[in-house]
């Protein structure tokens, strides 16, 4: 009975049974769905739905870095733009870069800098675009997880996939993957990004306070979540090509007809009879492009 006045004072983010507002346990993720290759014009792309978050990631490159003065003669740049759509939050977000999105862009590009093989593409830039269509806390983790899939989809050489998930503290309990209410009214939020194979942490931020022990617990939760996310990322990439995989396995190369030898043509621009160009093809397309006698 005396509890009644308590309830009015503050929202209980996690009840005595350890169940959160949305019915999750302390170590549960929100439902997540990832799809790779959703955009046609970008070199690589991915879309992620993570609870209430809807995030689109696109990757271009490696391509010539512009303006020229930002080029690095020894390695490529990993540039990232994190942007929230004006309609992504309940109050209209004023469009354009602000302090927060500039910061997130910076930490995400630094996270990917450590996994992309930058030495292979000197003077170029890999551009990552993260567009948040709908936000529900944890957009930088969702964006980073999607961007990692988009990078792989673009064929950018990289050491490993990166997955990110936040942990935080609500009502004194360390919990995984805070949602909007938990983030707004919770005690701490700590996003981290993990390289799958090595367990390296490539992004680590914190809002609020955690003790050392709480932080250890949060890190453990996030590392566990990263493994689950990795599986979702891997499945998304496999799914993109799975239709073709079966076909690849069954594939038998067609028999190659031997091109008939013929005398070299001397005249340029002369209308050819169809079927005469085979000496050109042979030279252009054989694996060893050794020029024949010139």
């Amino acid at each position: 009975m005396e509890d009644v006045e308590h309830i009015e004072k503050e929202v209980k983010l996690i009840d005595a049974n350890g169940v959160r507002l949305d019915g999750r346990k302390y170590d549960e993720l929100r439902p997540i769905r990832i799809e790779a290759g959703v955009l046609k014009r970008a070199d690589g792309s991915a879309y992620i739905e993570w609870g209430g978050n809807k995030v689109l990631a696109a990757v271009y490159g490696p391509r010539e870095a512009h303006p020229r003065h930002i080029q690095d003669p020894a390695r490529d740049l990993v540039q990232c733009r994190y942007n929230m759509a004006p309609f992504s939050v309940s109050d209209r977000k004023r469009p354009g870069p602000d302090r927060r999105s500039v910061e997130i862009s910076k930490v995400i590009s630094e996270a990917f800098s450590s996994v992309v093989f930058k030495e292979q593409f000197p003077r170029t830039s890999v551009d990552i675009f993260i567009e948040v269509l709908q936000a529900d806390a944890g957009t930088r983790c969702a964006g980073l997880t999607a961007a990692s899939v988009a990078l792989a989809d673009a064929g950018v050489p990289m050491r490993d996939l990166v997955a990110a998930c936040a942990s935080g503290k609500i009502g004194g309990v360390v919990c995984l993957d805070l949602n909007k209410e938990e983030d707004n009214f919770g005690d701490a939020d700590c996003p981290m990004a993990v390289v799958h194979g090595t367990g390296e942490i490539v992004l680590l931020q914190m809002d609020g306070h955690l003790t050392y022990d709480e932080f250890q617990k949060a890190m453990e939760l996030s590392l566990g979540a990263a493994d689950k996310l990795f599986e979702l990322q891997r499945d998304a990439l496999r799914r993109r090509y799975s239709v073709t995989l079966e076909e690849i396995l069954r594939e038998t190369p067609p028999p190659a007809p031997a091109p008939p030898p013929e005398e070299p043509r001397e005249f340029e621009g002369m209308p050819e009879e169809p079927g005469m160009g085979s000496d050109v093809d042979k030279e252009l397309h054989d694996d060893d492009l050794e020029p024949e006698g010139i």
Partner: protein
Amino acid sequence: MEGSGAAVRQIVIPGEAVGGPGLKPGPGTFKSGSQILAAQLGIRSEREGHVSVIPLNGRYLPQRGDAVVGEITDMGPSHWLVDINAPYPAPLHATESPWRVEFGDTGRYMKVGDAILAFVLSVDEIKRIQLTMQDRDARKLNGGMLVEISPTKVPRVIGKSGSMISLIKDMTGTRIYVGQNGRIWIDGPDDGAATAVLAIRFIEDRAQAVGLTEAVRDLLETETRKTGRTSP
């Protein structure tokens, strides 16, 4: 998906183990400790003790000897700059052109916007590219049209020792050059060229399909019948 573990080809994602001791890392892979891991999304391939990953997607990276279809984007007194769809600028020096070009006279031979078939002369360790047209097959491409496809699908368009591309050329009566950079130049009668483009797009969409050559032959036959052309 991995039902056929014995199959030679298997899709790998970056960071996935593709081989251990006894194998050497080839293109698209890297070594981490004793393991060889994939650096790219692609198909695992093992050949002569080397394990490599054939990328399923990605940009064109020039290699020495590649035939490329390029477009002139800029001109200097003794060179042309060519766009070959690579992340780097590709200059063609006047001495590497098929003509004797006087200093400052580059514009008389090729202007901005012209298309050429050239060869990659060299790519150095900092990815500086040089092109050459000192080759029997290199030429300025007059007339015709350019089609662009993903560079990873070029081998399928060409086919085994050129089988696919000669099929398209024979059945459409067109002249076609396929650059390793994914640019394809097509010249010929309008309906034939249109059919060739259709066939190339068909191959691009189904790059991994079985019996692609036969499917393309069927497509070309129905198309040529539609346009009323008899295939030569």
